[in-house]
């Protein structure tokens, strides 16, 4: 793919938009170097991301407030992330495991859960799944805390097989029961430091899971499910859908599945998929509400004096945006995660984007306002490297430069499809 287009795709799909000057900087580096920096930030001296939840003044007596604080802190962390691919992966895994902050007490367990996803997001899938399985937030979310010897609760065992590993059609009801029994014994009381194992609540009886005998604890359950080829296919397919779009050509990932099965390392998989994307293998996809928001923030919020962290907190409107769009980060609607991206073509999501775009446009930085002087430059600054489609160009251009034009551009179909 032409370098300019490759960078445009990378910026809009993977890093969720461009902050001022970034596109020019990337052109100087070249696409290979940019991909390398995104995938391996440690090797390029990129500063680590701060813990987004570190500054929350947590009040255990006010859980409702803690939920709101947690969601906005995480979104702000995403918007200003120095390592946008890691943020992309955080969001991917938070959708994959789909723990809802509303199901977790105290909310600090949810913060720890998100940090766990960050730690392993580009690491080893075995470690990730192992740690998530006995993570306090997950234990509460899918009832692992009440899964005990003699009284197994199938909730986590079922979703482990259906959603987190092999997938529908690759396990039986007996496998669900076996997984549940082998995972008995873990607790995560709200007034505690987190998860712990209580041997007397555990059923040590060896189970047969997916045809493998002797499964009787977390390690053997996870070892069994992560070694299944169906798990390798499912994880790679999910990642490929997130990176290359739901309609990508699945045949391009066959080699990646085999490679993933060898050591379960995620970083090489993600690197390969991103490289496929810049080579033109990505199919068009809808930009979901969170990536859309970050794209808009990066564009309008360049001037920290006008729209820095504090400015955004004062802005408000984020809660209404997320609720109306149907995608509240950290609060997926159910264990299956957020809806398929085309759900965000709904009338409700369209209204959410328009209203927040209008609000942001009225607070746009000089950088964004100047870009709006010229419709083609406005498109390019948003990462639409070939410019708006003619219909959009005419409509956006019919408005005066400034907030009106920016609001229309942010609501345009061109920005909604990448």
């Amino acid at each position, binding site marked *: 793919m032409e370098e300019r287009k490759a960078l445009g795709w990378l910026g809009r799909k993977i890093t969720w938009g461009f902050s001022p000057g970034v596109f020019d900087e990337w052109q100087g580096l070249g696409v290979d170097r940019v991909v390398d920096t995104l995938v391996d930030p440690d090797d390029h001296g990129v500063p680590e991301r701060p813990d987004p939840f570190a500054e929350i003044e947590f009040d255990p007596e006010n859980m409702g407030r803690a939920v709101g604080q947690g969601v906005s802190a995480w979104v702000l962390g995403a918007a200003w992330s120095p390592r946008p691919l890691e943020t992309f992966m955080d969001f991917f895994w938070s959708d994959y495991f789909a723990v809802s902050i509303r199901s977790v007490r105290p909310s600090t367990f949810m913060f720890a859960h998100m940090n766990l996803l960050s730690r392993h997001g580009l690491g080893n899938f075995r470690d990730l799944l192992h740690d998530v399985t006995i993570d306090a937030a997950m234990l509460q979310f899918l009832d692992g805390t009440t899964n*005990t010897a003699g009284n197994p609760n199938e909730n986590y065992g079922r979703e482990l097989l259906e959603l987190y590993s092999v997938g529908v059609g690759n396990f039986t009801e007996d496998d669900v029961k076996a997984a549940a029994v082998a995972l008995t014994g873990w607790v995560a009381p709200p007034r505690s430091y987190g998860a712990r194992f209580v041997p007397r609540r555990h059923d040590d009886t060896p189970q047969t899971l997916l045809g493998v005998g002797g499964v009787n604890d977390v390690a053997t359950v996870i070892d069994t499910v992560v070694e299944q080829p169906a798990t390798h296919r499912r994880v790679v397919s999910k990642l490929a859908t997130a990176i290359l779009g739901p309609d990508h050509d699945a045949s391009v990932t066959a080699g990646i599945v085999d490679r993933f099965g060898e050591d379960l390392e995620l970083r090489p998989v993600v690197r390969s998929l991103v490289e496929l994307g810049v080579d033109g293998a990505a199919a068009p996809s809808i930009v979901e509400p969170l990536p859309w928001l970050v794209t808009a923030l990066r564009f309008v919020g360049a001037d920290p004096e006008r729209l820095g962290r504090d400015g955004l907190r004062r802005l408000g409107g984020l809660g209404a945006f997320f609720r109306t769009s149907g995608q509240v980060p950290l609060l997926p609607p159910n264990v299956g995660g957020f809806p398929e991206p085309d759900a965000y073509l709904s009338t409700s999501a369209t209204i959410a984007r328009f209203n927040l775009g209008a609000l942001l446009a009225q607070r746009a930085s000089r950088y964004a306002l100047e870009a709006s002087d010229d419709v083609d430059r406005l498109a390019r600054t948003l990462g639409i490297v070939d410019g708006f489609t003619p219909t959009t160009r005419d409509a956006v251009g019919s408005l005066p430069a400034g907030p009106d034009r920016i609001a229309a551009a942010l609501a345009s179909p061109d920005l909604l499809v990448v």
Partner: protein
Amino acid sequence: MTNPLNRFDRRNFLGLAGGAAVAGLVGGMAFPRRADGAENLVVPAAQDVRTFGDPASRTLIVVDMEGGNDALNTFVPATGRYHDLRPTLGLPDDELLTFSGLEYGVHPSLADLEPFWDAGQIAAFYGLGLPEQSRSHFVAQDAWRSAQPGVPATSGWLGRWLEATEPDDEIPLRAISLGRDTLAAQGETGRPVAIQSVDNYDLVPPGGNTAVIDALVAMGQGTEGGLLGEARAALPSAVQSVEQLQGIISNVEGDATEYGPDDSATLFRAAQAIIQADVGTQVLYLTINGFDTHSLQLPIHAQLLETVAVGLRRLFDGLAETGHADRVLALGVSEFGRRVAENGSTGTDHGNGGLGFLIGPAVAESVVHGGADLDDLVQGDLATTIDTRTVYDNALRWLGGAEDAIEGDWSSLNVLSI
């Protein structure tokens, strides 16, 4: 082994039930009942001669109890096995409601359904499900919402009906989803208006400049296919729906809390306002989440059932006062029932045969079709004895005819007097 004491209790319960009916006649209060019981119902009785108007003027309101409603604790079968299988979750006999002539005890949160029952307006379907009914939420939801079990879901049963009956899609508010965009109302290309959050359904341009909204409509006029075309088409739909719903859902009279105990109350109130506004809405689809009660089921389930019962009661009462109730039929569905035996977390895991209902003046008589046979369980679940599609067929006949929206002939069970 079954507990003979429980069997005795159940017989005792049956005896009490008869006694309660007598006590009711002489003014006794043997069972908890609402003070404003059957006698206050303003919905006219179904025995009245009526035509229910032109099918095109009728509305179907679907209440989707997402997560898998526990049928067994909704309508409680009067056999001793129930308490054996549910030692802690079994509802005590003296807390159950008795509806006249109904062989099941009724969950105490459903008091608001009694007037419908007494008026002959509830057809319930016990053992409702689809072939190869799945215990996976997502497989089951897709199958129920598409009415195409075993096939990857691309459209909904109502969406196909909408497309078949109005191919030109000239009535913009014909289908509205409330609370969640739903597959059920999505056609092969068309999609319903989605109201995710009732409070924020409005467009607010920068500085109130409506020229920006005009630009949004102008951007929607392109002719591309593919995802960009879909994204474009979403814009005028959103603008149009806001204009047409202007003043309808934002200015509803009455206190939302009268419509139920939680946020879903606003959805029922909005549904009533939309029907009364007479804007051509034929399908309203409400999604109420949270029925996946793996743990601490009793209080959660009680509130959810109250949400449904109070919401429907207030909705129909309000519609009756304004003369609209005769043209409304409610359909209650849930993707599966729950396991008969409780788990160790004071909850229930995913099961099979569920409970659905049709409520409204057009229902021929109050009766439970099918049943819950606790002596004939299938893998620990209630058997599926009624195909979901036969109930959908009734709903589509209410709307004027099935129009091949569902493959096959499902007209064998006719429960409406139309």
